[in-house]
């Protein structure tokens, strides 16, 4: 679960990591007062959960009131729905540092990533000069110790007196990582100001999805959806992505669903939506189909090969859904796994013609979507 920049920075502040002065606004009306509080120059930053805001024009540096008000208006009018803006003092920057803590899955440790060359081009640096990015594993049973933070700061090239404040920031960021059961905490850039202080220019915190029960304050973070279908899928907890192709996928299991996705592309077909109703959602055929039907598509392709997700349960769910929703497009089923024969009986009784081979089902769907098969 991703946090907005302003939420991440609130956690930083709580952990005593310095952040710029700022005011968050939710409407254009609130802009004037906020701008007056923050002063000029300032930075107006769209609070959205997607990355690459700078390159997408969602962060505006402004020096005067008219340009600031203009920027606020432009951002609130942006086609991407922006729930709020952070108006933040501009910082007099000497250097930008990259700092993050994530997971070293192989070692079973936390992993600090750090570079003295932070900023928007960090990924280019990672690809072209990976040696400029430090990786420092941390034993989470022992926790991060001050000497480790010092070592990282020295290795980045920061000697006295900056070493101390950088090391302190690293320790505090680690505290956020642990306290908030994060999969990622990131400060990029961490500003070194002209007066040699350290301040978090941006903030990303992503809480592990299996640990959100400890941090329920953020559970309504995903509030902007591209469509009603996306919103409904989100509320049902069903993984769903909308595209503009022809075939609606209604598959079970992420691996199988992405494989079907590949097979359709390989066969020259196109996808209308990705929808995965496996695992805990395998009894939600009705909701899944309702979401699929809300997306324009020429055919719905249902592929499952369940073990705990029983084939007969899914088949019955699909049959019930068809009866209730009366879909206006053809449906191809390829339901296999536990209680497969019962599933076949259920589907056939409802007049469907179940298939048993995924690749065959995909070819049929592509062909039907192109109007080659009825």
């Amino acid at each position, binding site marked *: 679960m991703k946090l907005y920049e302003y939420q991440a920075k609130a956690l930083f502040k709580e952990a005593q990591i310095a952040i710029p002065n700022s005011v968050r606004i939710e409407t254009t009306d609130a802009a004037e007062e906020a701008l007056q509080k923050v002063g000029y120059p300032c930075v107006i930053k769209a609070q959205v959960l997607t990355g690459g805001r700078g390159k997408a024009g969602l962060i505006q540096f402004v020096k005067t009131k008219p340009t600031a008000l203009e920027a606020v208006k432009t951002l609130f009018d942006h086609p991407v729905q922006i729930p709020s803006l952070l108006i933040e003092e501009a910082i007099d920057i000497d250097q930008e540092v990259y700092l993050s803590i994530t997971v070293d899955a192989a070692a079973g440790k936390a992993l600090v990533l750090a570079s003295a060359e932070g900023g928007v081009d960090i990924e280019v640096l990672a690809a072209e000069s990976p040696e400029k990015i430090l990786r420092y594993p941390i034993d*989470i049973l022992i926790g991060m110790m001050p000497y480790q933070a010092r070592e990282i700061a020295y290795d980045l090239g920061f000697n006295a007196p900056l070493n101390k404040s950088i090391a302190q920031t690293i320790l505090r960021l680690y505290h956020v990582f642990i306290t908030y059961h994060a999969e990622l905490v990131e400060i990029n850039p961490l500003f070194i100001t002209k007066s040699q202080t350290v301040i978090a220019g941006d903030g990303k915190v992503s809480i592990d999805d299996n640990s959100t029960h400890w941090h329920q304050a953020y559970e309504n973070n995903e509030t902007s959806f591209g469509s009603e279908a996306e919103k409904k899928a989100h509320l049902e907890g069903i993984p769903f992505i909308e595209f503009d192709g022809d075939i609606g996928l209604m598959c079970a299991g992420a691996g199988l669903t992405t494989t079907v996705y590949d097979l359709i592309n390989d066969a020259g077909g196109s996808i209308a939506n990705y929808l995965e109703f496996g695992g805990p959602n395998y009894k939600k055929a009705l909701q899944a189909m309702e979401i699929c039907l809300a997306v324009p598509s020429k055919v719905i392709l249902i592929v499952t090969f369940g073990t705990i997700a029983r084939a007969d349960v899914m088949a019955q769910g699909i049959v019930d859904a068809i009866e209730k929703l009366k879909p206006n497009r053809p449906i191809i089923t390829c339901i296999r796994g536990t209680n497969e024969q019962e599933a076949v009986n259920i589907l056939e009784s409802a007049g469907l013609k179940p298939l048993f081979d995924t690749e065959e089902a995909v070819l049929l769907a592509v062909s039907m979507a192109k109007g080659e098969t009825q």
Partner: protein
Amino acid sequence: MSIVIDQKTRVLIQGITGKEGAYWTEHMIALGTQVVAGVTPNKGGQTVCGVPVYNTVKDALKHHSIDAAMLFVPPRLTKDAVFETLASNIKTIVTIADGIPLHDMIAIRHHALAQQATVIGGNTSGIISPELAMMGSFPHWIDRVYKKGNIGIMTRSGSLTNEVTAMVVKQGYGASTLIGVGGDPVPGTRFAEMLPLYEADEETKAVVIIGELGGTMEEEVADAIKQKIFTKPLVAFLGGRTAPKGQKMGHAGAIITGGKGSVQDKIDALEAAGALVAKKPSQVGLLLEQLGVPKH
């Protein structure tokens, strides 16, 4: 032959009295697995499928010799159950829970490495050596998937495993041991760590890995092949080759992989190491044939 478990492995079931635990215990026994004891706190003294239940692993060990533990334990209690098991010096653990907190999983992985133990899972169906034994929740009775044979199979996925394995079986092969390492970001066991066991197992003639986007497990397999840690034929299938990139996790993900880490990058690494990568599930069996892997 098989790796990790066979019909001689004496298995303890944690969470045996739960609905899921009891259901799969019955099936594990039906397949031939030696389930010798169960553990559920405060349910000691009961029996499930004829298996005696104890309050603690320590108690169970007073009455039984135990080689491996199977955990049917909720995700948030998994760390405790794994640590309890490791404290009793049981070095093979399978945990199927889906939803184990990430930091718990880091601790589990770390502790298992320190104890030189193998923890398979979470978020998996477990491990099965068809016709011999299983620890997990595989519908082993589906004979077009769970057929005994000489192919080692490892997977990060659930439903895709059935899809691919069915194609392997369709081509006349079967599995020596199938291991679901699980779909979590921090699995307890990684593909490459199991390769030396498949390498040493005489019956296993080739290995199939079923991978996906994210992490570096497939690249580690490529390394193991390059370093001749694994020298038998290896065929891979990876889902998500054409899938759009999901929302990235900050920059850290990209930094860790140095800008690589896509499914295509994984395919390139595997092919460069000499593995064959199937483009679709039905090709997996064909590629095994093409490599001259015997069917019996």
